[in-house]
């Protein structure tokens, strides 16, 4: 218990990932939803760093690095989309976003 191994990090990562999933499913405000997706990626990053550490291998850190880059780009595009939508509709609630269905 006191010896922190890889599994501890993996479990932590999983729990954070699950919290992220809760957010993804629960949030109706798109901005808040995007927060949750950030949590998903961050959760994975912990695991990558941990694996990297325990294997003494740098690939994991590389992956985490690129994940951070991806997360950053996603934020840019995601916010851009939200801004366009907000300009037209004055809200960013996904409940208002269901004109296409069936």
């Amino acid at each position, binding site marked *: 218990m006191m010896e922190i191994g890889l599994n501890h990090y993996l479990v932590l990562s999983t729990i954070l*990932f699950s919290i992220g999933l809760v957010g993804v499913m629960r949030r109706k405000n798109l901005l808040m939803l995007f927060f949750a997706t950030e949590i998903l*990626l961050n959760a994975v990053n912990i695991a990558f760093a941990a694996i990297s550490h325990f294997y003494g291998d740098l690939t994991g850190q590389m*992956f985490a690095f*690129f*994940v951070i880059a*991806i997360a950053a780009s*996603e934020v840019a595009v995601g916010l851009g*989309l939200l801004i366009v939508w907000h300009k037209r509709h004055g809200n960013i609630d996904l409940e208002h976003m269901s004109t296409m*269905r069936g």
Partner: protein
Amino acid sequence: MLAPVNVSLESLNIMTLAPMLIPIIGALLILIIDISKANLDKTLYVMISLLFLLLDLGTIVDSAGIFTASGIVMGVFDMMLIDGLAILAQFIIVGASLLFIPLALTHSRFHEFSYPEFFALFLFMISGFQFMVATDNLILIFVGLETASLALYTLIAMHNRDKSFEAAVKYFTMGALAAGFFSFGSMVFYALTGSVEINQIAAVLAANNYADIGYVLIGTAFLLGSIGFKVSLVPFHTWTPDVYEGSSAALAGYMSIVPKIAAFIIAMRIFEFLIHSGVVWLEVILYVGVVVTMTASNMWALVQSDVKRMLAYSSISHAGFVMAAILIGTTQANSALFLYWILFSFTNLGAFSMLWISRQKHLPQHQRTDHSYDKFAGMIKTSPIASVIMALFMLSLAGLPPFALFWGKLYMISSAVTGGYTVLALIMALNSAIAAYYYLKLIVYMFMKEPVVGNDGHVYVINATLALKSIIGFAAVGTIFAIIAVNPLLEVITTFVYNSGY
């Protein structure tokens, strides 16, 4: 201390990057032109894009030559992997893009094409897809995928109307979730094997004889979630109809082909070694997934009232059909995948282009969606040639011989037969029959109903220009005379796939 790295330039095989770099250069060029002089006409950008895509195609041909001569080429610190799959996939990606880009030359002006950023992003996207298929490193796959996806979201949104924003947001959000899944899946495999290169993963797993099958399955489940999202397997498909409906018909047609082939390549690279290593679980899951995807989306397509949405569901069904190749996993099946997808590109792009040329800016009172079935009622009376061509695409999609897609279906079902998947073959065949209904529905509307009063047929070609017509003509000719191309295609594809070890 770290030793300095000595790398000889020859060993890098920089040429393997050429096909991907060309569109990037093109995109940058477009951005630079835009900066230096604004408000140039879209035709300029279309032509620049075309030129760069052609160059791209040339380099791909070049790498195909290298591949035939010396087999699989690794490049740039073994990051790039130019094998048969990569070459074929890039052919499809670039070829479909070549067919797509002239669709920008519409008669009416649409928002996205008026801005050079569209073309720049388009070219970036292509390079993203190219990176995605030309590597077996999960990191590069991920980065390439995101590059392409982010560009694609923007392209969808640039159509600039409510539905397209909605589509882009939906696609984006789900894409972000899928990205999470992908990274988690990669993480699990990395944790298992200490590597993010697929062949390395396969080697390590094989070496310890899949001792940690539970981990493998968790990783597979997450990767299946994200790849399933890309190729729109049920239940990860929910974005497809909405996104297709929201985006312009041309882009929807493009989306039904290019992102999916890229995703198929990834699926092929990741899943086939697992299936071949006897991961029964994956086989069962894929079996169920394929069958459910084909059947369910067919049933949903039956009840649609908008042609574009119907085609969206139909493309889900086609994707499920093709996913069967990955399940079967023989050389024949993998070749069938490419053959199918090449033939599908022709037909589906044709079909979506037909919708595109009939896209009105302002819908008449009785028409609820852009391309509702009612719009095509009695089309044979007013524009016979257009309706015949549209019917041709529909019949081809339905798998009616001797049109293009039939040969793909034939070869695909045959691969199921030879792979020992008899029931699957039957299900695939019967699904074609279900699918025939909704394709037929459009034909029924076009040929057997009376036109709406006041419809003089102009509406069907309202957007048509010579460029669009040529593309459609090209697609139609390809669809009809596919039989001529099938043999050479098949020979090339089989050699490429076989020599890549799939």
